């Protein structure tokens, strides 16, 4: 997680929106969802996992340093109006993006039930932050090293069996969101997925972020990033997100070598 000074973006950004950044002049543009804002300090927080060269370089930035570009807020804010009782499902790093959504719901007076899933105990984040605003919180890990063993779908199903909800928000890996959609389908509850495709401009110009929703091509940057999870073609989205996998790996290895050189 890093915090950046960007007062106007801090003032305008709402839960569910994202920013695009470039680390330096030769850098690529990458989208990251806003994890939090502090209007008084004028800062915007983003969270990322090191997957390619850019995130590796971002990870190497130290307090007081600058980025070349920081653009936003982009995308439509998550719709929370009229929701009285909601389930927020977060997976892995996606929890950092789920938190502002949960916070916003809570601030608007909704009853929030949270299910957060991680691979294992060491990767658990933000548990206390979620607990502070959730009526119930269920933690799961794939290996059972913390909370309940298994994925988020079991506890989600128990919640749905136990009562009525206005909406389910799924924020995390594509595969998790796909399974959440499958779990909520029989209950007919509105389910929203926050998509995170590859992007360049983030303003509707490249079409790189296209997602098939209800058989129609939509752009995550201007039409989303939230879509009706029951209508998203997740299998296609999963394939598309792997488009630059070899390039990402090469870039990550290259920047790792660079950092090692600097350290030695």
């Amino acid at each position, binding site marked *: 997680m890093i915090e950046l000074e960007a007062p106007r973006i801090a003032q305008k950004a709402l839960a569910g929106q994202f920013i695009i950044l470039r680390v330096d002049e030769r850098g690529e543009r990458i989208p990251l969802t806003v994890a939090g804002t502090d209007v008084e300090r004028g800062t915007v927080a983003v969270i990322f996992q090191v997957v390619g060269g850019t995130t590796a370089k971002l990870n190497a930035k130290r307090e007081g340093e600058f980025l070349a570009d920081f653009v936003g807020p982009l995308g439509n804010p998550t719709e929370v109006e009229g929701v009285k009782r909601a389930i927020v499902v977060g997976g892995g790093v996606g929890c950092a993006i789920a938190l502002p959504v949960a916070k916003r719901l809570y601030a608007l007076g909704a009853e929030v039930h949270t299910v957060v899933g991680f691979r294992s105990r060491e990767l658990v984040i933000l548990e206390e932050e979620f607990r502070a605003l959730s009526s119930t919180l269920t933690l799961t890990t794939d290996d059972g090293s913390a909370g309940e063993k298994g994925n988020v779908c079991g506890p989600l199903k128990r919640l749905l069996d136990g009562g009525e909800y206005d909406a389910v928000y799924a924020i995390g890996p594509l595969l998790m969101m796909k399974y959440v959609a499958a779990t909520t389908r029989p209950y007919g509850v509105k389910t929203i997925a926050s998509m995170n495709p590859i992007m360049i401009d983030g303003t509707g110009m490249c079409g790189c972020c296209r997602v098939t929703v209800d058989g129609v*091509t939509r752009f995550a940057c201007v039409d989303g990033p939230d879509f009706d999870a029951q209508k998203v073609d997740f299998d296609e989205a999963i394939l598309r997100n*792997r488009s630059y996998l070899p390039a990402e790996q090469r870039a990550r290895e290259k920047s790792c070598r660079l950092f090692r050189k600097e350290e030695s």
Partner: protein
Amino acid sequence: MYNRRETKYPMPVQDPLVRNHNFKEVALGYDAETAVCEAERCLSCKNRPCVKGCPVSVAIPEFIAKIAEGDFEAAYRIISESSSLPAVCGRVCPQERQCEGNCIRGIKGEPVAIGRLERFAADMHYAGAGAIERPISNGHRVAVVGSGPAGLACAGDLAKMGYDVTVFEALHAAGGVLSYGIPEFRLPKEIVKREVENLIAMGVKLCTDSVIGRLYSVEELRTELGFEAVFLGTGAGLPRFLGIRGENLKGVFSANEYLTRANLMRAYEEDSETPIYHAKRVAVLGGGNVAMDAARTAKRLGAEVTIVYRRGMEELPARKEEILHAREEGVELRLLTNPVELLGDAEGNVCAVECVEMELGAPDESGRRRPVKKVGSEFRLEADCVILALGTSPNPLLQRTTAGLETKPHGEISADGDGKTSLEGVFAGGDAVTGSATVILAMGAGRRAARAIDAYISSAHR
């Protein structure tokens, strides 16, 4: 007495088999001697048909006469009265459908090379240009949204009139389509940079990374930031897709994405961190300038490239010169061919385009003969990358986030001939209003709006 030579003096170009491996400018420009000889081919017709063909009515015979006299700076000044971007328009205007298409010399032989002469005058001017004078400020503030041809032209004219202009650009670099769309080998980015630097020298402020409609609404530009008028030159960059099967396979790109990666992000350079597909066989679907740009970019990145277009050679909408250059560089054209479906492999990568051959039938509403399928002519074109260059629609963001801004069904902002929109003090022009068109039309619209903004602000303070 005029020069009776029937053909244009050839434009010196980089050798096709050398240039299809580099991104340097293809056309090298006339030298002074050639320019003077070419200018002498002009008949200086009384009724000036060339001027009628120019969307901004540049005084063409007059500037050409100055080149023939050897007074190149005077030629540049004449062009500048009507055009803010002569170095750009000389390179990218579809002259054969505008000025040169009307030239009398074209009836028997080739028209005068008006575009090349325009480019020559502009390049000569910049080669010897001194410092820009900063106009005296009139204290009135105007916001320009978008730094493409329309925005640059509007900002430039307003700055000359003394307005305090701020240009907001969503991307990290100014220039709009001139930066992200048109490739280096057709329009060197140095030229775009110079146009932008000239504006800054005139006192124009440039705010990159600023997405209006998100960071500030149009309303907030007026109320919170205190701009007296706003010009929207947000362009048409929303790519269209075909709606056929397989369009979202990996390796299928809109031309905008492919070109943005290559141009704006300079993905063709070794040290750029933006990845781009280095494909072996590329199919480009479409026949406009953007299709040619994408095809020639792919060629330079080392691919075998085929352009697939459903109509014939006559109907190809691209500039003649671009078609010629593409073919010289080894880009294959498959005309009268329609893509039916994109086929993928087991991993979801595109591997072929299923095509059908077409023949021309009766003319449609546009007057062009409608292509119809030839039964049983289906075939597969192998491709590990497919680029869709099927046109673009207006960028949707401002239209969606600005209450009260009237738009047309395809998302174009409604504006009158002066650029006035449905909102008080808000003007618009260029592709955002017309849908995707040409640099020169956008530039002309930006300049007309500048005059209308000046009239609007002046009348408010009378």
